């Protein structure tokens, strides 16, 4: 019970941290939409010039829905916590978690979800607007089962993204200054997860390769549950694969941190 309270407080800290810079939050949402606006105009121009109703397997409505949702979902799932974690490792900030009755993993997880709460609210507003207002969405089918799986897949995508970031951050135990490394990994993960463009743009072979990796289930899969590209027969299977990847990445994160702690010097702090 006591432990639950601790983590609730950390969740609140995360939320307060996000609220502290709420004008920043709203402005950062605007910046997330700028690339989506560019792509909206590009895809609109492209589809106008095509006689086929689909391109890369997407109808115009599906492509626009993908463009908007991918921009929001990538903001939602990307943790950007690697710098903070590596800083804790480098400067001895982990020391206090070694002596206090709280796990560093639990702290980061609750802080992450607390920080993302504002994004989740923004996300719900945007989804509602798309569902009820956007003309593009009227052509998409949203049966209740698909909407439920979409919501669950977003939660699972956040878990996968968190575990992946946590595992990658452990590299800081071995390398001293790797801030650029995290910039590159975040960018690559965003692209191969379908955060910039649908994976079909890079060719069917590339999409097939990525589909056996966890990145596939971070942005591309949840977004395409919504657009209807993922067939109804594969919805529950995809959710199960997300669960499997969460377990695997949890194991990788646990092992890498266990190995990393053997090298931890606890300097400073």
């Amino acid at each position, binding site marked *: 019970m006591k432990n639950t309270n601790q983590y609730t407080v950390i969740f609140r800290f995360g939320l307060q941290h996000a609220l502290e*810079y709420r*004008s*920043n*939050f*709203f*402005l*950062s949402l*605007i*910046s*997330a939409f*700028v*690339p989506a*606006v*560019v792509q909206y*105009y*590009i895809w609109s*121009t*492209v589809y106008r*010039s095509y006689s086929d109703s689909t*391109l890369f397997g997407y109808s115009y409505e599906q492509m626009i829905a993908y463009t908007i949702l991918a921009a929001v979902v990538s903001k939602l799932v990307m943790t950007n916590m690697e710098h903070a974690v590596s800083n804790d490792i480098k400067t001895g900030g982990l020391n206090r978690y070694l002596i206090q009755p709280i796990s560093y993993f639990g702290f980061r997880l609750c802080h992450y979800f607390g920080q993302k709460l504002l994004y989740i609210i923004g996300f719900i507003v945007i989804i509602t607007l798309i569902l009820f207002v956007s003309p593009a969405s009227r052509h998409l089918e949203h049966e209740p089962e698909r909407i439920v799986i979409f919501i669950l897949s977003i939660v699972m995508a956040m878990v996968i993204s968190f575990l992946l970031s946590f595992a990658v951050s452990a590299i800081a135990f071995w390398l001293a*200054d790797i801030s*650029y*490394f995290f*910039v*590159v990994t975040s*960018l*690559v993960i965003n*692209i191969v997860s379908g955060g*910039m*463009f649908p994976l079909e*743009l*890079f060719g069917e072979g590339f999409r097939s390769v990525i589909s056996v990796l966890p990145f596939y289930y971070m942005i591309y899969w949840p977004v395409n549950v919504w657009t209807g590209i993922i067939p109804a027969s594969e919805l529950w299977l995809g959710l199960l694969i997300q669960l499997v990847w969460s377990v695997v990445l949890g194991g990788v994160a646990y092992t890498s941190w266990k190995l990393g702690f053997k090298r931890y010097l606890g300097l400073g702090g």
Partner: protein
Amino acid sequence: MIHWSEVKRHLHILRLFVKYSLMSQMEYRFNFITGIVAEVAFLIAKLLYVLLVFKTNLHIDGLSPDVILMFLGVHFVFTGIYMGFFFQNFLLLGQTIRGGALDMMMTKPISLQFLVSLRHIDLGMAFPNVITGIVLITKGWNASSIMWTWETVVGFIVFLLVGVILTYCLMIIPSLLSFWLLDTSAAAEISYALWDANNMPASLYHRAIQHIGTFILPFFLITNYGPLFVLGKLSALQLIWALAAPVLFFFLIRTVWKYALRQYNSSSL
């Protein structure tokens, strides 16, 4: 009144900034190389738009993919110039103002605006973008059958100079806000998003966006007017605006800078 001896002195100091920046970067070679690797990763992400243009055979207002390549190329060249000359300085300007370090810099016997704008130069960040940009411009230029006459080349270079001044004027705005605001990161984030979005012909967008991007925040002048000039698609009015805008915006930024300095009171020293 321009004092040419002062201009010569500042150019000499600029040379020294380049020299000392390079020397200090060579001291931390690993960081210098990883910085270039990170920049190349961003470059590859931006090159995905080239893939998009050619895979979808995108035609914008009669401009073929080969011509659009020139717009993308100019965008890369300016990204290189911005990253190499201004990015780090603008990033540090906010910290300099908030931390009160500006006080010390005021005592130096050169223009304060010049000092804070150009003291850190990172040629490693500039080269990958500038080289890729020149390759794309050349490919687009040749494929579009534009004649290599001295008029087109000199005109194109003049528009590059116009672009440099406007890049400076537009991208310094978020940093100038640091004189009044505590956290300007979201404003900076929006300016980066707008910058990245400025890689396509303006005619792609709605007329209202075209007007805003030409007259209020003239980002389109940076990437669009050079290629449009060599294509012979600039009207006399657009030519006049292209030459007047850098003067007008530099004057505005200079006025805001002087006003901000009058408002400035040392923060922490």
